[in-house]
């Protein structure tokens, strides 16, 4: 069974500083990996995803993530954080359940990002 670990429950960064959120996964085959963001009182919005090819993936809002198979990691990065980035971030791993359908996702416990001005 797949699993996801987000070791940092809460991170605080200053506006303009760089950001890296950690994600480690466990899955027997090549995973599908996702990062979602959740603002307070909202649903989850996809930031980016990886399924094959280039291991550095670009997403929305200036975020990127790098897939490192040797480390079973898919860390999320942003070079300069904006106050509006304060939210909760979830890493997820997908497993193919049936061909032709979206995969089942297993989510990490999330990392809450606080941005100080």
């Amino acid at each position, binding site marked *: 069974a797949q699993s996801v670990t987000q070791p940092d429950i809460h991170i605080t960064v200053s506006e303009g500083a760089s950001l890296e959120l950690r994600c480690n996964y466990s899955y027997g085959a090549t995973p599908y990996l996702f990062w979602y963001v959740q603002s307070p009182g909202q*649903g989850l919005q996809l930031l980016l995803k990886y399924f094959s090819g280039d291991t550095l993936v670009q997403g929305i809002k200036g975020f990127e993530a790098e897939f490192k198979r040797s480390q079973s990691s898919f860390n999320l990065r942003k070079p300069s954080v904006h106050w509006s980035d304060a939210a909760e971030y979830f890493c997820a791993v997908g497993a193919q359940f049936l061909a032709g359908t979206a995969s089942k996702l297993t989510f990490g416990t999330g990392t809450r990002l606080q941005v100080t001005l």
Partner: protein
Amino acid sequence: DARVTQTPRHKVTEMGQEVTMRCQPILGHNTVFWYRQTMMQGLELLAYFRNRAPLDDSGMPKDRFSAEMPDATLATLKIQPSEPRDSAVYFCASGPRGVSYNEQFFGPGTRLTVL
């Protein structure tokens, strides 16, 4: 702008009452997921439908929870009878046809409080 919609957005009820939550997936999507989010457990998958057929509901307490898709535009999650421990935010998500690495699109959630 196609979105997943959920109703109601908030629900407060008393223990023992029936609760029904509704979800309208994005038109054309063929998979629907129900998740529950709590502080203690995080995001848990409750049920998973493809082409309206239930594929996996192993995450759902069978004695009180039921999930159905009466038609392609409506998914329902019912709790009967409800208990205080069911208090959580329930999310519906839908996924498009095609490849398995397609992302899921989440609705805004239903915040359920059982007193």
